[in-house]
């Protein structure tokens, strides 16, 4: 190894070495913090000892005979966080008091112990409470003077569920148009949309409704704003620079935001989880790629959220935002997972690994008990499709069977409500374009084949375990399936490149109710009640004909709404019904009575509409007639002028000059045909 002095000579440096010292009168104006901030952070702190001590409460009170065992257990648990240099188990009347003191070699280790061991459940009766010794000091010396906290003014947002009280049960939807410059909220009425609220530049990109419809979220460079109530007042603001994507917990208590801009090693800011009501940041996470949003998937009750990283499944619980059991699950090779929409069960799959076949696992949370494992062979890919209530799970398996070429698809149907979750297999002969479960039901629809030979098949999962093919229609122009949120009805759509072909199907008897078209349609959206369907041509995918059309669930076209540079329509979701199953049954029994009342109301409103329309038309016709009468009068007055201009020839009517017409009959050759008459003899 060369000396540094020699190196300068070795490198062939010519001339004098430049001076590296500061000029004489140079005054340093940068402090150490700026220059060496990160190094200073690691400067050894004065260890005055007590910062490394923790106090553990709720420790079992034991007599001397069990003390050694206790100490071993405590040691095992707490040495995970650092080297324990000292321990003290205070005693009284022959037993340990129930709290102990442990000292680590550094305050950081003590902090780790507090962070991770606080709340540790040793057994049924003992859950450790861990604190820093210095904290006790802090809390003991709290000022005796009570300072009343500042009173926050009460922000009254009104009734956040106001839209549900519409006497005619109209659903709302948001519309973004003028290429994003204007956003409007409309109430859906059969006659025409009723404008509720419209604002310019309400959002900078697009909008999202919260899962129960309470809030409207708008996107801005600085973050997200939530609006709600009758007047759509701003309820909350969340500051997250450059936010691109958001997600809500199903209960609407939490919101997750993603921004690719801000993220520091120590302070993860790429993904932030917020408490919606208080506006507080609950926790931040790093995020490598937002390709499969939402990164965090929520359990249906909002109690857990989970995400998948390389070979790992991390499950967190609310409201603590901490890892369940304080650790992630190691699942080697995990490819995908999803929550059951009805229970706290996670389904995930891992591909083949040497001798171990690929498998799908159903795991119950929080017990982590594997309630079902299914082995799969020669798997290329799997997709998980849950039925809306969690009654069924469909795993679409693409396989390359041994000895055969090409990829074959099976549907493995898990029947979740039955003991031991039986699995049945449906083999598909063609490649799959789309798959969708009937919400609230036990049917599913599959689009399969390859353009132009696409077919749709309807299957029914029967209670006896058989999966029956109910019906198949071929020669379909469709690439997407849209079930009504209430089940039974669906729309098959050929969006975008398939020019907006639509088919409305009733799956109770698998009939095509109507076949129609919305040229170049890019989206199909059912209203939350399943009564109406909106098809639309978004300016984001097609620059002309931007409009949204309203249809009944049977495929009858009700309205065509052209909107200048229309971009997006989203129905406002409805929260779950408050009625019990019994109440719903009662209403269905009495449906005839209710139907009569509604029919009467509809007829009244329709005749009112007809009356309005008829009145309008009558007025328009009257005005037009008046105008034409006046024009005709002028025309007649000008007749002599016309005759004069055309030298006395009357050209006012087509037949004014019938005498002048010549009739000529012309014959011309069309065709020659030779017809044999057969033997005449």
């Amino acid at each position, binding site marked *: 190894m060369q000396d540094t002095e020699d190196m300068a000579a070795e490198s062939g440096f010519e001339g004098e070495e430049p001076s590296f010292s500061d000029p004489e009168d140079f005054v340093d104006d940068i402090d150490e913090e700026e220059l060496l901030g990160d190094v200073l952070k690691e400067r050894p702190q004065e260890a005055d000892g007590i910062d490394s001590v923790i106090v553990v409460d709720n420790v079992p009170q034991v007599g001397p005979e069990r003390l050694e065992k206790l100490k071993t257990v405590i040691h095992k648990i707490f040495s995970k966080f650092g080297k324990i240099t000292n321990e003290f188990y205070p005693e009284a009347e022959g037993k340990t008091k129930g709290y102990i003191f442990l000292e680590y070699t550094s305050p950081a280790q003590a902090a780790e112990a507090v962070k991770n061991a606080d709340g540790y459940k040793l057994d049924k009766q003992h859950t450790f409470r861990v604190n820093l010794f210095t904290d006790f000091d802090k809390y003991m010396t709290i000022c005796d003077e009570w300072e009343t906290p500042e009173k926050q003014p009460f922000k009254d947002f009104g009734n956040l569920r106001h839209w549900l009280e519409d006497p005619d049960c109209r659903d709302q939807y948001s519309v973004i148009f003028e290429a994003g410059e204007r956003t409007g909220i409309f109430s859906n009425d059969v006659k025409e949309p009723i404008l509720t609220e419209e604002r310019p530049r309400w959002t900078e990109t697009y909008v999202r409704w919260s899962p129960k419809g309470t809030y409207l979220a708008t996107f801005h460079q600085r973050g997200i704003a939530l609006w709600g109530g009758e007047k759509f007042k701003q309820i909350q603001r969340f500051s997250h620079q450059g936010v691109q994507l958001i997600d809500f917990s199903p209960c609407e208590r939490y919101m997750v935001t993603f921004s690719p801009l801000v993220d520091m090693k120590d302070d993860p800011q790429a993904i932030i989880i917020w408490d919606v009501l208080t506006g507080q940041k609950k926790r931040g996470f790093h995020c490598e790629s937002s390709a499969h949003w939402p990164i965090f998937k929520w359990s249906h009750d909002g109690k857990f959220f989970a995400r998948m990283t390389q070979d790992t499944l991390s499950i967190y619980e609310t409201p603590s935002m901490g890892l369940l059991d304080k650790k992630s699950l190691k699942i080697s090779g995990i490819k995908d997972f999803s929550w059951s929409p009805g229970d706290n069960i996670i389904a995930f799959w891992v591909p083949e690994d040497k001798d171990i076949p690929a498998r799908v696992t159903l795991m119950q949370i929080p017990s982590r008990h594997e309630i079902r494992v299914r082995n799969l062979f020669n798997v290329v890919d799997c997709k998980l499709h849950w039925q809306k209530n969690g009654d069924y799970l469909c795993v679409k398996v693409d396989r390359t069977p041994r000895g055969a070429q090409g990829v074959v698809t099976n549907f493995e149907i898990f029947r979740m409500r039955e003991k031991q979750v039986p699995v049945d297999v449906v083999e598909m002969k063609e490649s799959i374009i789309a798959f969708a479960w009937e919400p609230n039901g036990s049917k599913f629809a599959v689009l399969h084949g390859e353009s132009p030979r696409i077919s749709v098949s309807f299957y029914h999962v029967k209670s006896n375990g058989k999966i029956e093919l109910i019906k198949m229609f071929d020669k379909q122009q469709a690439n997407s399936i849209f079930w009504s949120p209430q089940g039974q009805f669906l729309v098959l759509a050929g969006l975008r490149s398939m020019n907006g072909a639509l088919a409305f199907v009733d799956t109770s008897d698998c009939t095509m109710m109507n076949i129609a078209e919305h040229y170049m349609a890019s989206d199909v959206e059912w209203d939350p009640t399943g009564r109406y369907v909106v098809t639309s041509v978004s300016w984001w995918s097609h620059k002309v004909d931007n409009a949204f059309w309203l249809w009944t669930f049977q495929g009858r076209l009700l309205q065509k709404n052209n909107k200048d540079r229309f971009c997006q329509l989203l129905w406002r979701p409805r929260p779950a019904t408050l009625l019990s199953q019994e109440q719903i049954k009662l209403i269905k029994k009495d449906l005839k009575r209710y139907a009569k009342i509604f029919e009467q109301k509809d007829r009244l409103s329709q005749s009112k509409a007809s009356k309005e329309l008829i009145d309008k*038309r009558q007025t328009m016709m009257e005005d037009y007639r008046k105008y034409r009468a006046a024009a005709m009068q002028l025309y007649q007055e000008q007749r002599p*002028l016309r005759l004069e201009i*055309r030298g006395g020839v009357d050209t006012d009517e087509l037949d004014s000059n019938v005498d002048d017409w010549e009739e000529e009959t012309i014959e011309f050759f069309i065709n020659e045909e030779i017809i044999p008459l057969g033997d005449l003899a």
Partner: protein
Amino acid sequence: NGHTGAVWCVDVDWDTKHVLTGSADNTCRLWDCQTGRQLALLKTSSAVRTCGFDFSGNIIMFSTDKQMGYQCYLNYFDLRDPQQIEENQPYVSVPCSESKITSAVWGPLGEFVIAGHENGEINQFSAKSGEVLRKVKEHTKQINDIQTSVDLTMVITASKDNTAKLFDSTSLEHIKTFKTERPVNSAAISPIMDHVRCTVAVGGGVNIVFAVFFHAAYEEEFGRVKGHFGPINCVAFHPDGKSYSSGGEDGYVRIHYFDPHYFEFEFEG
């Protein structure tokens, strides 16, 4: 044969004696209808966009495009004065500096020309002096076509702003508006002027392949006719009102006859 460039406009006089054509070869020519003989050639500095005979057939007008440094002009010639034709001297020439004329028709008695402009304006130019008698701006974008009703009392304008509008020829009063989702290339008024059944046909702009029919008084669309493979550039009703024809970018002229239902149906009202 005759023009050496695209023919942009053609008109025939009321007696079908003469034919007038305007072309991108910078000429406007007069022809004898029966023999096809060219009777006159009027040179211009730029392409001739619109042309037409007045009610008497004696006065012709044509407008030239704004091109290559030349302005748009509206020119009037009196065919009874051979000197004007020989010396290529219109008796009135109106410059249109602001917005060029995109379509034009004669008014009822040959008193003025109704012109539609690139900026959506409509002007009445006097046939005597060339001054602007009346002007309106109801359209927000270029006027693609103007056609008259059979009795010349009304005109219908087709505009890039997705609407067609009905005006009174003399007062330029805006009477009706017909809305579509796309730029309108051409519009025509049915000669069956029965006020109950007056219909307006509209053929559209970029990519539209429908001819759309409106009830004139209610401004409501009641029918669409498919068939063309490309945009429809012009529509016209047969003088007896029993059929219409449409010409499209696809190179086809389609002639449609209305079925009995068209003549019978009634709007509630």
